[in-house]
């Protein structure tokens, strides 16, 4: 997965590579272990819904949707090409099967997923909604509006996952908006909170199980991650928020990942 994402970034000049590499395990676990969805029926009204609230992680989402059979992997060859729907952020539903919401402007995805979770409750649909947020996204006031409303209404079929890689676009997330103590904030806002290693599949899948078991509160999984995870010279280096790899860097990254192109 990382190999494909890095190659896409290099070939199509798509940035946010560090932000993509930090959420690979989270999205992989979601799409292969957790979400009750089917590529044969992407619009099934009884499906689970996932909103990539951190829309700049789109390259991971597109890769995963292709691998899960929502569209042919070959379609991703057009990533970044003029006229393609595969660019830096997910477009609105209807253009790429499996995409539930257009995101990219931060702070919209969680409230939209909350609306979808409320709809499931109203319609009597036994399904869940998930949203993946970045830590920088928690700067947005709308996230905390949604947090308060979801807790107030006890929307227990909603799980938020925070890709807590400790960076935002131009600096440390803690230094810019004093994010810590992040878990305590969500707890004080009335959510069921779990802190996990966001690169450990066992911890991720266990957290999803516990979130589902909570029947009175919305759940948040604060997933500690490393921006640029998997490539030594990208890890925890925020330059990879904007940079795309040149050919030498691409070769080095692929070599580190032990997969030769």
């Amino acid at each position: 997965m990382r190999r494909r994402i890095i190659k896409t970034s290099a070939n199509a000049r798509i940035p946010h590579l560090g932000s993509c590499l930090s959420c690979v395990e989270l999205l992989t676990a979601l799409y292969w272990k957790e979400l009750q969805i089917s590529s044969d029926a992407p619009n099934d009204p009884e499906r689970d819904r996932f909103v990539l609230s951190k829309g700049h992680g789109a390259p991971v989402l597109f890769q995963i949707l292709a691998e899960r059979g929502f569209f042919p992997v070959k379609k991703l060859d057009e990533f970044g090409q003029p006229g393609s729907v595969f660019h830096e952020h997910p477009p609105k539903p209807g253009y790429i099967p499996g995409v539930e919401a257009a995101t990219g402007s931060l702070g919209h995805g969680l409230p939209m997923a909350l609306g979808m979770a409320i709809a499931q409750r109203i319609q009597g649909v036994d399904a869940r909604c998930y949203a993946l947020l970045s830590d920088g996204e928690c700067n947005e006031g709308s996230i905390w509006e949604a947090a308060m409303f979801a807790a107030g209404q006890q929307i227990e079929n909603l799980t938020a996952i925070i890709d807590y890689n400790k960076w935002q676009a131009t600096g440390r997330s803690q230094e810019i908006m004093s994010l810590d103590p992040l878990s305590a904030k969500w707890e004080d806002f009335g959510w069921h909170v779990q802190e996990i290693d966001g690169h450990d599949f066992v911890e991720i899948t266990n957290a999803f199980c516990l979130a589902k078991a909570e029947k009175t509160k919305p759940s948040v999984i604060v997933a500690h991650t490393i921006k640029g995870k998997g490539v030594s010279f990208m890890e925890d280096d925020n330059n990879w928020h904007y940079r795309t790899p040149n050919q030498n860097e691409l070769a080095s990254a692929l070599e580190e990942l032990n997969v030769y192109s």
Partner: protein
Amino acid sequence: MRNAFAKAMTDLARERSDVCLLSGDIGNRMFDLYKEVAPERFLNCGIAEANMMSMASGMALSGLRPVVYTITPFTTTRCLEQIRIGVAYHEAPVVIVGTGSGLSYAELGATHHSLEDIAILRSIPNLHICAPADSLELVVHLRDAITQAIPTYIRIGKKGEPDLHQESTILGIGKAHLLQSGKKFLLLGVGPILSEALTASENLRRRGIDLAVASVGTIKPLDHEFLLRMVDEGYDNWISLEEHHRIGGLGSSLLEWLADNCINSVRLRRMGIKDHFVHHLGGQSYVRGSEGLNADSIIELLESI
């Protein structure tokens, strides 16, 4: 108008299991009956309009028909990006209802005036913009918006607005019609301020000037056929009237329409709020007068032509 809105919502909630009402912590006892009919489909979303609008788009994408309701500035400009992306870009069938539009809350000051909402929202693709003149037109617009499942903004007044229409004359979203026929002079207006135009029309008739008055109802899309018919019928002096800034509202829409259709035979004069915030306050009637938007101002303009 807001009482008519509450009643129409109650009827719609009774008729359709997908209709939901999201309120931004206003309405107090107004929705008691609605809540009896559909308690699980009433959400008091608190004073958090950004979240309310995004939630509504999520609900609409899941097959519901949410109607978002609060005071106009807060359900429009306060959460503009949530409208632009969540509602309009997604083509999510959300109905956005702003109450107390224009100068309805004149005495509450500039924070509660909504004089830019049409200009701003009509620049957003996929969004219908309605400004019903009275409760009768409001109910038709609301039903249409929910039935047609098109993202729609409905700009309404507050309370006590007189009914100006005959129920049978209202054709729905995208349809304008004459409230008063006349000759040569045609006033095209939106919203409850049309009552000023009808008063002016009555006075002018006694002075030998026949002013026709039309309720445009929908600013986007404009009723192309109706406007062409007015041109064909020889109305060549048009006046637009709106409780909104002159920049970007109905008058601007009509100017664009005339230009885009190469119609040179019509002279349009625009009545609206000047390019300023209103500081010297009073009731709605007082401010309409001080801003040159009441019946006397219309009469004065017509007599000067």
